[in-house]
């Protein structure tokens, strides 16, 4: 196992280097003036366009620019993100905990609901529950997240005045930035609880409810359907028939035998879902004014903020490799026949 982890971790820098080289290569198609647009946003600044290109070395050959960037990275400096208005490393530290918190709050219910109802749908195939979950899955699939997000916001915040957008309200804003609030983990709900402030924790949680609900509704559909189809396949296999013939209770057949085997595609999908959520959910973060990494990385990409884009890409590559490694390890756990070596 350790050998497997070490091999995967050794692979990490190569993946990251490859991804960043690809990105820099793609940027070669953009002219210096296009990349200068990051610094020249107002028509009043147009006359200084050439000076900006010179100052930031945007007219240098792309390999030279890549080498300069890489040297910085090797010295532990990821550069300065113009869109985040802070160094890239600081930006990642600032935005990632919010996304991580939202991911945790969404991903656990996604897993629980997806696997539980997916299993139940398979067991009660074509019954009312199966039909209901099918409708939920189809609407979840087809509903754009901005429509659902705005709809939830209008009902719960616009009408009932609960579950506001943002990450916290003004009182909590002042609290979390004061010296008496200790940031232990970066996860504000947990930090508020550790600080003993339950009202603040409740406020932060209330701000998480709608974005998390949107993500759960949109993402659970896929997991639900995959679990259902995988379960149906397993339930039709000979070993299940044998288990039933042996007189094992149905719950044991379903939970201990069939479901465990049905989980392999679910693990793959879950890890991809997890990476997707961790890399940021742009529309949900935008609608709910949630300061996460997704919103930042998209703004960085739109405005050709090269250090910002590279930083976000490095993070995504890192998450991808690590999440894949964990999912491979989980395969071995759910199916002992799989050997990591």
């Amino acid at each position, binding site marked *: 196992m350790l050998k497997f982890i070490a091999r995967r971790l050794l692979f990490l820098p190569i993946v990251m280097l490859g991804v960043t080289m690809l990105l820099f290569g793609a940027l070669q198609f*953009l*002219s210096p*003036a*296009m*990349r*200068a*647009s990051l*610094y*020249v*946003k107002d*028509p*009043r*600044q*147009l*006359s*200084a*366009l*050439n*000076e*900006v290109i*010179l*100052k930031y070395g945007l007219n240098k050959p792309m390999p030279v620019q890549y080498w300069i960037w890489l040297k910085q990275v090797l010295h532990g400096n990821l550069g*300065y993100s113009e869109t985040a*208005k*802070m160094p890239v490393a600081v930006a990642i530290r*600032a*935005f990632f905990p*919010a996304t991580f918190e939202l991911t945790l709050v969404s991903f656990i219910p996604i897993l629980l609901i997806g696997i539980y109802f997916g299993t139940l749908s398979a067991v009660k195939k074509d019954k009312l529950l199966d039909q209901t979950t099918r409708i939920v899955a189809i609407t979840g699939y087809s509903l754009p997240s901005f429509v659902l997000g*705005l709809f939830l*916001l*209008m009902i719960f*915040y*616009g009408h009932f*005045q*609960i*579950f*506001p*957008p*943002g*990450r916290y*309200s*003004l*009182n909590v*804003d*002042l609290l979390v*930035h004061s010296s008496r609030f200790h940031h232990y983990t970066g996860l504000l709900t947990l930090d508020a609880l550790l600080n003993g402030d*339950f*009202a603040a*924790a*409740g*406020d932060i*949680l*209330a*701000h998480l*409810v709608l974005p998390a609900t949107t993500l759960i509704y949109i993402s659970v559909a896929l997991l639900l359907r995959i679990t259902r189809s995988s379960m149906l396949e397993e339930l039709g296999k000979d070993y299940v028939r044998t288990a039933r013939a042996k007189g094992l209770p149905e719950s044991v057949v379903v939970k201990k035998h069939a479901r465990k085997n049905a989980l392999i595609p679910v693990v793959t999908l879950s890890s991809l879902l997890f990476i997707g959520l961790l890399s940021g959910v742009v529309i949900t973060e*935008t*609608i*709910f*004014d949630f*300061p996460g990494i997704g919103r930042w990385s998209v703004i960085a990409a739109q405005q050709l903020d090269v250090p910002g884009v590279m930083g976000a890409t490095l993070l995504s590559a890192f998450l991808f490799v690590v999440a894949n490694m964990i999912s491979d390890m989980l395969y071995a756990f759910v199916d002992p026949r799989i050997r990591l070596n």
Partner: protein
Amino acid sequence: MNQRTACRLFPVLLLALVSCARKPVQQAVFDPSTYTELTFNDSDSMDPAWSYDTASDEVILNIYEPLFMFKGSSTKELVPLIAAKVPTRANGLISADGKTYTIPIRRDVTFQDGTPMTMADVRYSILRFILQDRDAGPSPLLLEPLTGYGGTRDSNGKIVPGIFKKAEKSVQIQGWDLVLHLPRPFSPLPTILASWAPIVSKEWAIKHGDWDGTEATWKKYNNPQKQTSPFFEHAFGTGPFVLVRWDRNTHEIVMRRNEHYWRAPAKLKYVIIKGIDEFETRKLMLEAGEADSIYADREVWEQVQNTPHVQIIDDLPTLEVNPIVFFTFKLDGTGNPFIGSGKLDGQGIPLDFFNDINVRKAFAYAFDYKDYINEVLNGKGIQPTGVVPKGLLGYNPNQKIYSYDPQKAVYYFKKAFGGQVWKNGFKFTAVYNAGNIPRQSLLQVLKHNIEALNPRFNIEVRPMDWPEFLDSYISSKLPIFILAWQADYPDAYDFTFPLLDSQGAYPGPQHFADPRLDKLIDAAVAQTDPAKREKMYWRIQELEYEDVPNLPVLQPLDYRTQRDWVQGWVNNPIFPDSPYGCYYYPVYKKLPAPPRKPKHA
């Protein structure tokens, strides 16, 4: 605790936490001490010498103070702020030759910690503003009048020899007087000093690692990296508010009332300016009372109408000309995708297509200005009479303007290129910045009207993202392009130079030059007699009408969306981000009185 108990406890705990959270939200509904403004853009820097964007400038307006201030909503009348008097010829504080300004400074001004402001701070602030001179920054606005130079570096990025000495000599102090020596008269100087170069603390700056004010070190602080300055994210000013926090994570700026303010303290205790990209979210927060005013552009005007407790203040004047259609006189043909065949063969345009004045005039007569303003923009604006907007000295209401006249358009098209344009037709691509609906509509109206004149005329309209636009703009590849100009300071020079002078921001890539205009613009800025100056700007706009280098289409009227409990707001179109942005000193919140019940006899 078994699994089942945990499952039952979880929703109970969740509900309990959420019910705790409802309290702060409800309290936020009416809080007279805190003002929340929701905008869509984020600040760039809190450094007054760096900032050249409206979002940052709005914060700076409330934290720092310049020498003068505009009186109420006037863009012409100045009142002293840090200065004790506004220099005029009448009070003798502007010398007879217009080259020396003596500005008495108040002695009772304090910084936010209560330490008194000194004359060294005043001089340091102005020198720092002009000598920092970052690329694409605001320094040239003041550097030019004080030194005669448009920048501290030449085109190769080398420091101009002797520029420090020139700057130092031009900004002098004599007791409590600031004396500015100009190389030549420069009439807009007081209005520039009312908008830029506010006072910072020299002591605070040096203590936090900024320039020490000496010649030996200034080059190190010239054209710096933005984030290296202590002023980038911290502030130390004399203004009515103090910067508590600029949270780039949540796009939020928190300002607190300056309790050491040298005038009476502001009525609001906190001001929060928060960037929220999504309009619907901003609107919902306004409705819930969590926001006191929001940014809402003309396209969503109908959506904010008739919202309970929300006040719409409409028809507010602006100091901008937006949009303006620019013609490129000499196009770059290298790999140019916008000019078709590059010949006048009906499948393209030649590189000098718009160099022919008949083509430009034909385009000018082919656009229906009135219809565009009334139908597309609901009548919210006026057709400018030139590049100088209404509200500034130099605006001439009687100046001739182009109006929709298809017969004249045909006449000029027939004259263009010796009749070849009419006979062969043309084809080119016109672009607008993606997402800008009014500009898209403008080009579609122009396309429709021109193509209706002759079936051989063809204009393709397409959107373009800002980076791509910049690339095409700088290399003079766009046959026509649409942009705008808003005032840096309220003076006609700020419009005529960038839009009409051959050294200006637009005429460069347009390859437009009229020596008569250059000479007049130069003379007008040095003219100190307002009556003579006004005449000069009228003449400039007559020449603009003759040359048709561009078509100023609209001076828009804006509107503001705020809660009905907001009181004391004053609109001044020169304030940054006006009317959405705000000078918060006079603003307060008060619940409107309930409507009176009619008395019964």
